[in-house]
């Protein structure tokens, strides 16, 4: 079964190449893997540079989402007033499509990099905020009673009980946000590049589309997919390592 799983990807690529060659589909409609690799090889430096820009936006947005998401979730856990103030706005941000907000943010913020990070953060922030909020409410009532009995201050309960208890849910939220940050970064780049701004992978993708360089488009798409996959795997590893260290799993 493991062998089958390992062979499935190369097998599919071979079948794809064979089908394209045998049916004589032109590369501007559907390029084969060989044409895609050739397109990547022709401009690998430029494409990797563009990937670097997109990944920088994505990782910065993820960092911003962690700080803002965990910070607001802690505030909401500590105070009912903060909950009443923050929660509706967080939901409004979540349900508003980023494509609709992005042009406004780009106009308001001015600095292209900050604007892209902001757009991607708007998309990535909610899963972290929501999961951490649920996690902060998760400790068993007996442990909360124990903290009360021993005269714990609010910050002690947040930092010594609620935040560590929220770790498993925070990490699953982070995994979702990792993928969303990439999606947010790409969408924001699409919007921004129409005004002649960023030089990330999404910009290269659009540029190739305008020039009908479909193999190069596929090369961009492949890089984006690989970046998404790598993010997911890295965050998955981080999740299992931290949960093992924190004693949540054996």
């Amino acid at each position, binding site marked *: 079964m493991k062998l089958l799983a390992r062979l499935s990807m190369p097998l599919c690529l071979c079948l794809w190449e064979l089908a394209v060659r045998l049916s004589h589909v032109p590369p501007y409609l559907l390029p084969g893997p060989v044409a895609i690799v050739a397109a990547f090889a022709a401009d690998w430096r430029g494409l990797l540079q563009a990937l670097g820009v997109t990944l920088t936006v994505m990782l910065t947005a993820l960092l911003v989402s962690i700080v803002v998401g965990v910070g607001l979730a802690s505030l909401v856990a500590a105070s009912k007033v903060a909950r009443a103030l923050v929660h509706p706005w967080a939901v409004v941000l979540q349900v508003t499509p980023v494509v609709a907000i992005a042009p406004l943010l780009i106009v308001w913020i001015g600095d292209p990099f900050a604007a892209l990070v902001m757009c991607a953060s708007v998309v990535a922030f909610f899963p972290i905020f929501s999961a951490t909020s649920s996690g902060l409410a998760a400790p*068993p009532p007996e442990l909360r009673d*124990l903290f009360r*009995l*021993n005269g714990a201050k609010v910050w*002690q309960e947040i930092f*010594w*009980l609620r935040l560590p208890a929220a770790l498993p849910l925070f990490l699953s939220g982070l995994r979702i946000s990792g993928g969303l940050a990439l999606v947010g970064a790409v969408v924001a780049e699409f919007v921004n590049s129409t005004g002649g701004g960023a030089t990330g992978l999404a910009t290269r993708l659009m540029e190739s589309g305008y020039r009908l360089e479909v193999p190069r488009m596929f090369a961009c798409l492949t890089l984006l997919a690989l970046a998404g996959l790598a993010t997911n795997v890295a965050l998955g590893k981080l999740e299992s390592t931290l949960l093992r260290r924190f004693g*949540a799993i054996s």
Partner: protein
Amino acid sequence: MLRLDRVGRQFPNGIEALRNVSFSIEPGGLIALLGPSGCGKSTLLRLIAGLDRPDSGRIVWRDAPPKAGQIGFVFQDPTLLPWANARDNVALPLRLAGVPKSEARARAEEALAQVGLARSVMARPRELSGGMRMRVSLARALAPRPILLLMDEPFAALDEFTRHGLQNDLRELWQESRTTILFVTHSIDEACFLAPRVVLMQAHPGRIADDCSSPAPYAARDNAVRMGFVADLGRRLALMAVER
């Protein structure tokens, strides 16, 4: 040490958990609060701990009311922090009270040794058996040297062998330290084995049915006098259930 005077508690859903509960706790005593499920034993414990307030009556402390950390509480589940080792779990109440880390850890190790876990100070809860986790929970309650230790059916979820071992250890601990203990249980045998005084409760609403001395609390489990008392309490609890 402490007197409960006609204490009553009614929950917002209308259920009367306790009605006119009056009894006193003397320093150094070990009292078993015995009764069927739903008779308000845990509610009573929460009221004494200050985690809940009575709707009627009052709880009077002979001296000043206890400060934070002076009441130890052992819950039915060990409820340990899964990310912390046994020593840090036990040190938690001390750290919350502002005791410096190194001193808190030293006292935690002392408390763990007291419950027979000197070799497991660095173990995480998932690496310990159910009985060992309960010992950590007991050490956590003992570490701040409480003036009153409240125990809410702590051994109910354990297997019989572990339960008997822990009952023996608790009895020895109490005989050595003379910490005042209020021990909630629904096991007649456990109440009579552990405590020289058994307060019997009945349900709907929760109230005191009797307050009696156990004739031979520390005798062997098959001691005739103790077995007679166990049988007598059993009959009375059964009668109460029929009357209800």
